[in-house]
């Protein structure tokens, strides 16, 4: 029997789309169908590539048969445990889908960046990046209590649900970040939150980006737990807030707090005190309200997408920022940036680079990347290759035919 026929048998012909003679896109409607697709692909030694929201099949560069498995029909909440604040959601649901389901029950997945809202759950979990970190809840993977996935042999695994455990390695965390190479994530159990009683936002003007960074870490050391923080340098503030002209070298800090009213107020006041200690002052709260609406209410943000995203630990954030700005100035261009995604590991700088009145060319971007790395930054999406041999060995055991997303993390 041909692979195409077998795929049609597995998920129904309506959900199999031939892309060319050896490429198909299939859309299973259940974990059992995913397992069946993978089993069939394995018998043909065909590659299995997961596709989340917005993902597209890539054309083969060889003659290997490929099955691109879309998660879009895995769009159900399998269980909502309101007592434990846990949701078991299928991999094709986006953060926004989940928010629509949870919102009427006064529940939420939490205060995560917009990328989490627009991505499918399977995609968020399969790829490890700091772009999904929340000042209030930590890294998105920290919200994962359990994962269901299909291995290369077509067997489904379900890691046990427990608030914490001491029964060996965290096997769910082995699947998260593995980009579909260890298993195809079909659903996950996530911690969710009751919508906060109070939400407060505030904006502050500080004499420098360094002072703003210091104020943030001062407040975090006083255990403030903000729901969001963002620092804009003066040029970036001018683009994000047309008409706003900060004094040269100054910075705008927007901060959100949430929780029981007294605690949200306490956190806001701790941040305000830290700002004052660093020579800053409160400014127009409408700036912070607009920032929050852009993050969580879909209001558009002006300006192009940042050309450089760099993570830095708390002690390196300042150096990375100044290194990138200085490098672009040396090349006759300019960099503007905002810094957000503050968590225990550090923060992420989003820089927009320009030269000659246009978006910076590849050479300038590469130079800025090098400068950021020399200053101690980590480019988002980078790979550490030092453990590749162990990952290969692990895949040799689980997937000897290398059908699971071959070419990825290789």
């Amino acid at each position, binding site marked *: 029997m041909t692979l195409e026929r077998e795929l049609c048998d597995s998920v129904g012909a309506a959900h199999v789309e031939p892309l060319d003679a050896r490429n198909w896109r299939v859309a299973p409607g259940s974990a059992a169908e995913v397992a069946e697709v993978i089993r069939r692909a394995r018998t043909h030694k065909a590659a299995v590539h997961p596709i989340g929201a917005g993902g597209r099949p890539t054309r083969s560069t060889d003659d290997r048969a490929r099955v691109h498995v879309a998660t879009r029909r895995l769009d159900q909440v399998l269980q909502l445990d309101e007592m434990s604040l846990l949701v078991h959601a299928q991999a094709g649901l986006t953060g926004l889908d989940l928010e629509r389901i949870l919102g009427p029950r006064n529940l939420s997945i939490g205060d995560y960046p917009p990328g989490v809202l627009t991505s499918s759950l399977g995609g968020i979990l399969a790829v490890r990046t700091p772009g999904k970190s929340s000042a209030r809840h930590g890294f998105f993977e920290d919200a994962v209590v359990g994962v269901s996935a299909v291995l290369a042999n077509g067997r489904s695994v379900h890691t046990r649900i427990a*608030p914490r455990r001491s029964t060996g390695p965290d096997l769910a965390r082995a699947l998260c970040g593995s980009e579909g190479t260890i298993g195809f994530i079909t659903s996950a159990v996530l911690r969710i939150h009751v919508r906060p009683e109070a939400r407060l936002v505030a904006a502050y003007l500080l004499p420098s980006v360094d002072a703003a960074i210091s104020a943030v870490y001062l407040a975090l050391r006083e255990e403030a737990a903000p729901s969001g923080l963002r620092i804009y340098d003066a040029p970036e503030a001018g683009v994000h807030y047309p008409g706003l002209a900060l004094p040269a070298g100054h910075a705008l800090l927007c901060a959100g707090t949430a929780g029981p009213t007294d605690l949200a107020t306490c956190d806001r006041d701790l941040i305000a005190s830290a700002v004052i200690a660093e020579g800053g002052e409160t400014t127009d709260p409408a700036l912070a309200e607009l920032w929050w609406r852009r993050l969580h209410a879909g209001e558009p943000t002006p300006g192009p997408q940042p050309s450089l995203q760099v993570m830095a630990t708390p002690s390196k954030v300042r150096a990375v920022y100044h290194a990138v700005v200085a490098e672009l100035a040396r090349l006759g261009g300019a960099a503007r940036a905002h810094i957000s995604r503050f968590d225990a590991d550090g923060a992420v700088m989003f820089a927009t680079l320009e030269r000659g009145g246009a978006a910076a060319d590849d050479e300038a971007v590469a130079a800025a990347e090098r400068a950021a790395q020399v200053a101690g930054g980590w480019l988002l999406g980078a790979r550490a290759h030092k453990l590749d041999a162990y990952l290969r060995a*692990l895949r*040799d055991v689980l997937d000897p035919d290398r059908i699971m997303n071959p070419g990825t993390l290789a």
Partner: protein
Amino acid sequence: MQAGVDIDRLQRELEAIFGARRVSLRAVDLETYARDMWPRLLLGYREGHPAANRPHAIVWPEHVREVVAVIKLAREQRIPIVPYGGGSGVCGGAVPLFGGITIDTKRMQQVRAVHSAELICDVEAGLSGERFERELARRGYTFGHFPSSIYCSTVGGWLATRAAGQLSTKYGKVEDRCAGLTVVTGRGEVIETDGPSRALRGPSWTQLLLGSEGTLGVITSARLRLSPAPQLRVFRGFEIDDVGAGVAAIRRVLQKGLRPAVVRLYDELDTLMNSFSHPEAEAEAEAEPALAGPRPPVETGALPTWPGPPPEEPDGLVARLIGFAKGKHLRQAATHAALGKSQLVNRLVGTVAEKIARRGCRLIIGLEGARIRTEVEAALTFHELEVAGARDKGEDPGWAWLRKRYAVSYRMSPVFRDGAFVDTMEVASSWERLMDLYHSVRAAIGRHAVVMAHFSHGYADGCSIYFTFVGTADDAAGAERLYDAIWRDGLEATTRVGGTISHHHGVGLLKAPFMAGEHREAMAIFEAAKAALDPDGILNPGKMGLRGPRP
């Protein structure tokens, strides 16, 4: 024991790596390193039985390169490697089931660096918990990890078992505080995981190695997250009508987003035993709060003063349980008779507990941290508890718990001396399943032994239950049979209601037979990791329910 080991050759080659002073094949050392604090092994030890499984040699490395060398040697000779920290494990994880080389990490004990700006420190695996926390307190930080074994456990042991400290509700379990590991794998290679690497793609090797109990690698050092030392500490005692109301109250607090450092709810029997454990302190506290004793200074972190030698008359909670069961002055035979009819005792004690402790269940709660936020959070927390029906008993019960919180670990010997045994079973589940878990496990253990429980290590999504049980039998063999039956029935009940079989003690030998039920098909991932990191199966073989090659 491993057959066919050339002991003379092994000794020569080990001494070439470590020098003669850091290698031992002495009988007394082999006997000492044959066990950890797994109570089942203590049953035979009490009767004078020699250990069934002893290592061939013990080594004390001081540097990661020595760990590499000994693992390469073991790999060549197909000899098992068993890592050993403080030896405080209670699941037999450090037992050298097939002999081999036991690596005692305690000479790797440096705090290499404290990165203040990052709130990170680099520390070697063999450092004792007490010394680690004192060193951090001296610099104004805390790791926030305070297991009851803190005086006799090591950082590496914590990481290898995913341990929890008493203040885990605020600081998290040890896996929440670990930013990276240095590990020597079964291939004899050093790997460093993660670091400041949420920017990096790929699975989290740190989370894959944490909790592997020496089966995937030997942890030699770690990068750990710190917190500023607390500026303020607030403790209170509450009473609440029953376990169900207490559980609901804790859930209410945690799901509001409040993070006390510790919350402990004692069931009716545990509450009763607690009041017997500290009657003098309670009486003093009730008569005159000022006499309740000095409060531990905040600046020492959560470490208390050294508990000193054990009292001649055991007065710990568990010893009181024995005393209670045997009427304190009855003959030992009566104790055995009482504990032997555990179902009856559980029922009787439950009734007595209910009647005597009309006031309900005891709940201890404590917060610590930065001054302003802790004050606000404490007020909100206490308010939520009162809304949930808890009655505030003031600060003294909280401070009394804080003063005595390490004592119980050092007061189990009298129980064994009296011919009985005691152990603890720490399971966990989501809130939805928690009361089912409590009733099921309590009933399962209660068929065999006197059992009580407290709820601690709470999270927004669930909680751990810590069962303490005391049993007895006529001889060591009978005690072992009873002990095995308790664990079998308790863990089967746990799995049946969807709980996890261990919250923080680990697996070792004790829970290895239950790993298949715990992880089901997902064990395939653990076994694949084992094959990748330890292809010859030399690392801590026979543990954690892993199959595959053995040396």
